[in-house]
């Protein structure tokens, strides 16, 4: 297989406008472009899609309200109750950003921002930092009791507390790797199947006929990726809710 058809090529970062500030390469790249496109699409849908006097919602407004209700009531409200109100804009922003970058990434020849671990890790760190700030702001040093499971006998604490701390510290890693790996694997799989189709068609004979198989697989994987794109955005938002809820309420759920 030619290197040009490498399934990893789609993840390459290409500078469009080279920018360098204070020795850092801050070039406007294809990644930057698709971030801005995702944000633009999200903002356009959420603001232009809603009419102030839209008592009877149209199609676009129904979609917006569905998303809003899904995160506001069914996710944030469900997990955090009243205390989630002030975190809703943050969680909704995370959801919309991931949702739109995931979906725009499904367009052929586009770029999937969330397939890069540095982006998802940065978002996970934002969540982690928010959890720490909220936790210490609300509970002070008592926030450390998060690492002491209630109800466990004292002699097992030397074992449990380190486990809890490790589990807490690994959250940003699991949160970011889950999203990036899903996007990376899905898009690689799509590209591999698509590459099979082209290669087999080019090979001629019986292989050309058989190329329908990877084509069907590609279509099915595309459908799966549509599902994954939405689910991963929601999973990220949901886990953020759960972590923030723990920071606000500690153990007393």
């Amino acid at each position: 297989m030619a290197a040009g058809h490498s399934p990893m090529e789609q993840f390459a970062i290409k500078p469009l406008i080279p920018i360098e500030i204070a020795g850092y390469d801050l070039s406007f790249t294809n990644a930057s472009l698709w971030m801005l496109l995702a944000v633009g699409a999200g903002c356009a849908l959420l603001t232009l899609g809603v009419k102030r006097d839209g008592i009877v919602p149209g199609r676009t407004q129904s979609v917006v309200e569905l998303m809003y209700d899904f995160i506001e009531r069914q996710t944030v409200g469900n997990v955090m109750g009243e205390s989630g109100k002030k975190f809703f804009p943050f969680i909704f922003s995370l959801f919309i950003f991931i949702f739109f970058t995931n979906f725009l990434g499904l367009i052929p020849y586009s770029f999937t921002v969330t397939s890069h671990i540095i982006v998802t890790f940065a978002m996970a760190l934002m969540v982690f930092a928010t959890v720490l700030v909220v936790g210490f702001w609300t509970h002070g040093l008592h926030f450390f009791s998060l690492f002491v499971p209630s109800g466990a006998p004292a002699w097992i604490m030397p074992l449990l507390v380190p486990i809890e701390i490790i589990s807490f510290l690994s959250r940003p890693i699991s949160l970011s790797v889950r999203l990036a790996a899903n996007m990376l694997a899905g898009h690689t799989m799509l590209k591999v199947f698509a590459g099979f189709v082209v290669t087999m068609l080019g090979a001629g004979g019986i292989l050309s006929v058989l190329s329908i198989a990877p084509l069907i697989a590609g279509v099915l994987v595309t459908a799966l990726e549509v599902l994954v794109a939405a689910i991963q955005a929601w999973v990220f938002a949901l886990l953020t809710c759960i972590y923030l809820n723990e920071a606000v309420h500690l153990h007393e759920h």
Partner: protein
Amino acid sequence: MAGSTANAFQVADVAPEPEHGDPAAEHGDPTAEPLVMDELHTSTEADGHGAKPGLPQLDTTTFASQLFWLVISFAVLYFVISRIAAPKIGGVIADRANRIKTDLDTAAQAKRDSEAAMAGYDKALADARAKALKSSDEMRNAVQAEINAKNDAASKQLAADTAKAEARIGEMRKSAMARVGDVAKETAAEVVSKLTGQAANPADLEAAVSAALKRG
């Protein structure tokens, strides 16, 4: 490996485009792409990393740019959502919920009103019926009483008239009976004088008539 990959990238990127027939579709300038690619490869090679054959995700030289643009775009998104979109959407949903609640309340109030009106109508109907029944009863009773009073008065009058008439009849009979003796005496005296040719003794007559009257 690195050099061949870079070459292959360039060949793959430049060559297929004219074949696909959309050389100007991307950025309007078909020659811009290979130039950018050249810059990228020369710059990465100059940085000492070389063209990485591995995952682009692990190329740390791109991290600063990605983080920079992530912060900018996410900040914009957060600002728009927290200041404009979320209040607007939440407001619309709340407005609708209020509107529905108000409408439902109004409907419930109207239902209560109509039920009250219905009850009032039923009551008025029952009252009117009772009143009509009462007044017809009263009327009937009054008429009945009047009839009874008139009947009583008429029968009293009748009884009085009857008694008066009977009294008069009794008187007349008494006076008639009183005169019967005289008539009988005269008749008897007449009969005796005709038969005997002489006047009868009044005392005998008297005795005979009263005896006959007593026999009846």
